[in-house]
């Protein structure tokens, strides 16, 4: 559910720090009908132009707080609220080349009443301004 809304087009851009491009950002929503604590957000498999992005390189910013994806299991209180757009930051020196990129997300949700949880997914072609 909500699959086609997972990747948020407007938030896609390269980011700079001290004049250097250090990576890129995209907006992400969850494929579920309620907000959940981060420990119930399972694997986020992000693929850009066919290449899988290492989870270690990813953080998400939610309502002003930033969390590494690697630490979600340790967050049984902090929530990703229903409908909130998390700003995912990927550390990648130089960022992405200007032009179109194929972005694919597969998102696992560890919801206790669904044996094994479930997955959502979205694919969009997004453009980095030149």
């Amino acid at each position, binding site marked *: 559910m*909500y699959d*086609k809304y997972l990747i948020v087009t407007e938030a896609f851009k390269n980011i700079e720090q001290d004049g250097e491009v250090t990576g890129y950002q995209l907006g992400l929503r969850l494929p579920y*009908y*309620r*907000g959940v*604590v981060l*420990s119930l957000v399972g694997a986020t498999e992000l693929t850009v132009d066919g290449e899988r992005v290492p989870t270690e390189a990813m953080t998400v910013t939610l309502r002003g707080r930033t969390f590494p994806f690697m630490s979600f299991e340790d967050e049984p209180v902090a929530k990703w609220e229903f*409908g909130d757009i998390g700003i995912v930051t990927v550390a990648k020196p130089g960022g992405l080349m200007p032009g179109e990129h194929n972005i694919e997300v597969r998102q696992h949700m560890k919801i206790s009443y669904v*044996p094994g949880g479930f997955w959502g997914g979205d694919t969009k072609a997004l453009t980095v301004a030149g």
Partner: protein
Amino acid sequence: MATTHSIKRGVSLYSFQEEYFLHKMTLEDIIATCAKLDIPGIEIIGDQMIPEYPNISDAFVKQWHGWMDKYGRTPVCLDMFLDWNKYKGRVMTDDERIESVKKDIENAHKLGCTVIRVIHDVEPDILERLAPTAEKHNVKLALEIHAPSYFDSPLEQRLVEMFRRVQSPSLCFTLDMGVFTKIQPRVASDRLLREGLKPEIVSYLIDAYNTGTLPSTHELGRRNDALPAKILEMGGREQDIFWAMMATHGVYSDPKLLREYVPFVKHIHGKFYEMLPEGREYSIPYDDIIPILIEGGYDGYIDSEYEGNRWIQDAFVVDSPAQVKQHQAMLKRLLGEA
């Protein structure tokens, strides 16, 4: 048909989730819409529309009651979840489960809700231990009977036995009307076609569902292996299995059993997928069920619960208020209010 009854109408705000998710409507907009649509009772999923649930701020509680007054609505039900797998590497202890639901009970009390929709993975002995707390706060713990389960399923039978033994006014069921899904929702089969399932597989699923001949191992918490085998045998793809399972998740249970079990039902989810212009639901025969509820003396709320959104959102703009409006018109007609 008995004409006197005290069944009340409400709506689960779950129905408006698409507009809330897309930030097209705020919680206040939704409550205002409920007033405009003349729906007296309000049900809310804490985790869906209450920030930081279960840690509800005093400011939210004040605002909530302010909205109830401003728009003249009545809080009815709070829907809870038991995320027993949220701690790393272990499941919750019984005591942690008790504490988690106790917090929901306190939250329901703060919000003025008299019913909690309890998710089915709260064990009967946990519920039993919570009865005194629920009674103290004048809140009913209404475990949800949801397809594919029904009154005669193993868990529900254990609960009935416990309800009879404990005799607590706070222990009861929420009944989801999805247990009376007589034919497969059209919004589901249409979606399967858009997802690229072969038309012959979609036709097969409709026919097998409607005639009760699906190869199914409907058992809570257990995977149905028979249907996937059939889909693959018909030349379906791996991803078709997920859609086939989703589209056939409903059940059509025997409404006659309601006569015996209505006394245990204190809340109802008026599940619906698609309202038709002539004022009926495409797949759930409300005209057959409501009279049985009236005869059985059901006296709680029936809360509209729109779930067609997830089936059509890939291709259409969801208009939840329009669907809820039609569902309420049907309830009014069947409850003799029209």
